[in-house]
């Protein structure tokens, strides 16, 4: 187990390293000068050039990258134009947002987490619930309705659903406030009411996949011998389905959920844009548009960390769910 964990973590670090190098290279190829945004109207080339040198943008790529890595590990001095000393983990200074990138992250991460985690819980419950309902009575009216619901969800797009929900619940019926982020600690009710539409639309679309996946898995599991054993023991339906079948059928759902949640945490650009909430995804997109390299690097890295972590977590969860994995 420990060896496995160490190996997985090493591979994850390698992945993150590769992600950072690729991003670094890719964004240096961008047709966008990070300095030009710094003087909007009357800027002269000489001044810009001096700023570039001061920011180290004229240094060789490798030493720039090394400096970046050093900043993450030990922190570094960025100079007056970038807020001075930047403590570890230093992700640099954003000229566009005029703040340290770590501050940006500290601001937008809770937002994205607040969107994704409740939404994921909701979509998993909904998906597994729907899948369960339809697997219990395959071919029934319930099954048709559940599958129809999930197929519709899978065929719609978030921005579409989001726009319609906004129009109906916020602008027309006025049951909900305009979506926005309030910290959970500040006001749980406002936190929830500002995000509930985002959760619902994410859940509607995502649950589709889970409903179908879980339904198929459940049907397969129900034909397993051990389910028959459970019934032969005289167990009731709830126990047979809820305990014996569910646990075995949930494993592939865990895998897919891990990937999805990881990816979603890395950037719910569309959700954030649809509902006008400034989270990690939108910050990343804005950063790309503005050529804000430090923010891009940070958001890409954070997104990658989420994906990698989710993968790791899935592996660990597997071991919890399936005792056969524990031996290895």
């Amino acid at each position, binding site marked *: 187990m420990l060896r496995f964990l160490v190996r997985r973590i090493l591979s994850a670090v390698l992945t993150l390293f590769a992600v950072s190098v690729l991003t670094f290279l890719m964004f240096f190829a961008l047709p966008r000068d990070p300095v030009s945004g710094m003087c909007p109207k009357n800027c002269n080339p000489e001044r810009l050039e001096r700023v570039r040198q001061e920011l180290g943008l004229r240094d060789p790529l490798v030493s720039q990258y090394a400096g970046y890595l050093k900043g993450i590990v030990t922190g570094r001095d960025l100079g007056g134009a970038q807020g001075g000393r930047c403590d570890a983990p230093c992700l640099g200074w954003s000229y566009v947002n005029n703040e340290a990138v770590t501050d940006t992250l500290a601001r937008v991460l809770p937002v994205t987490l607040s969107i994704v985690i409740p939404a994921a819980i909701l979509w998993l419950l909904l998906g597994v619930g729907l899948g369960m309902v339809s697997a219990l009575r395959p071919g029934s009216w319930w099954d048709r309705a559940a599958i129809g619901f999930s197929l519709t969800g899978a065929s719609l797009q978030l921005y579409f659903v989001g726009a319609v929900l906004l129009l109906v619940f916020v602008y027309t019926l006025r049951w909900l406030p305009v979506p926005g982020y309030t910290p959970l600690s500040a006001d749980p009710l406002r936190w929830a009411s500002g995000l509930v539409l985002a959760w619902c639309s994410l859940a509607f679309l995502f649950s589709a996949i889970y409903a179908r996946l879980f339904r198929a898995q459940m049907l397969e599991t129900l034909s397993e011998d051990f389910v028959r054993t459970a019934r*032969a*023991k*005289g167990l009731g339906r709830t126990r047979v389905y809820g305990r014996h079948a569910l646990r075995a059928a949930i494993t592939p759902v865990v895998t897919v959920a891990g990937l999805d949640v990881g990816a979603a945490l890395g950037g719910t650009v569309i959700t954030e844009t649809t509902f006008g909430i400034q989270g990690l995804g939108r910050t990343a997109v804005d950063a790309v548009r503005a050529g804000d390299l430090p923010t891009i690097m940070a958001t890409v890295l954070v997104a990658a960390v989420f994906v990698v972590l989710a993968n790791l977590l899935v592996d660990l969860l597997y071991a919890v769910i*399936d005792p056969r994995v524990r*031996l290895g």
Partner: protein
Amino acid sequence: MDPYLRVDDLRVSFGTADGTVRAVDGVSFAVPRGRTLGVVGESGSGKSVTSLALLGLHDPRRATVTGQITVGGHQLVGRPETEVRRLRGQEMALIFQDPLSALHPYYPVGRQVTEAYRVHHPRAGRAQTRRHVVEMLGRVGIPQPQRRYDQYPHEFSGGMRQRAMIAMALVNGPALLIADEPATALDVTVQAQILDLLADLQAEFDTAIVLISHDLGVVAQVADDVLVMYAGRAVEQGSAEQVLRRPQHPYTWGLLSSVPSLHGDAAVDLAAIPGHPPSLIDVPAGCAFHPRCRYAEHAGGRCRTQRPELTPGGTPGHRMACHLPAVERARRYAEDVVRVGVAR
């Protein structure tokens, strides 16, 4: 004494896209407590379907079950699921062929046995239940049952798993045990252990056992009575002595003579039955065995058109379904089977 298990004209069919599958087509038998019925047949003969039907484990939406199944005085067919459920595990239990897939891979073995106990003893105390289960595990020959209790099925060997299955089946002391190929997936040496164990436990609990197997040797070893199935129908039944020593049906002859033996003449070919078992969707008209029967011509063509009913054979309690006239049968048995086939 009234037999504990009585099955009358059991029929099980499944609707599929390609037609109706008559998996069991009119089978009747009875098993008193303390005795073992061996059900023999090849793939698709309906023996496993019969075992599931006995416990009412078929999906009612897919399978149609008719006939009478009486267990300890309760008629099961058509009863509500909740009532049948109370009998399962308590009055009657089932052992499957493959203990690895029959045990839930994610739960410790002891817990699975405990679950079988607690469902019928909801008021039993935790500690007392555990004691009982550990004792049961020990009784079926699992060494160190205290430690084994918390282990997972994958940490058990094949034989130990089957012992655990047996413990699970017997934990409530059922009067009827249905063992579906209980030893087929195991090695011969372990298989022998399991069969012995079953016999010992039967003696102890006075259980009625229905043992389902394709292996005539296994049946010979443990069964008191034997039922031979072909294409969902019973073709011959009687005591083990009658069916295995003095078989009357050409299919039983074929089965017996096609089994390679440790004795006999290894230099001659085995007496194989030609062809292969029929599809249950498209069972041949008349006697289902007739396309493979080398004596079909001797019954005057009835084999093709008319379905033979089970009729009493030579000795009391011995019955078989064959159109072959008694005289012809006796002659063929003497000439082909005894001399050539199973020359022992």
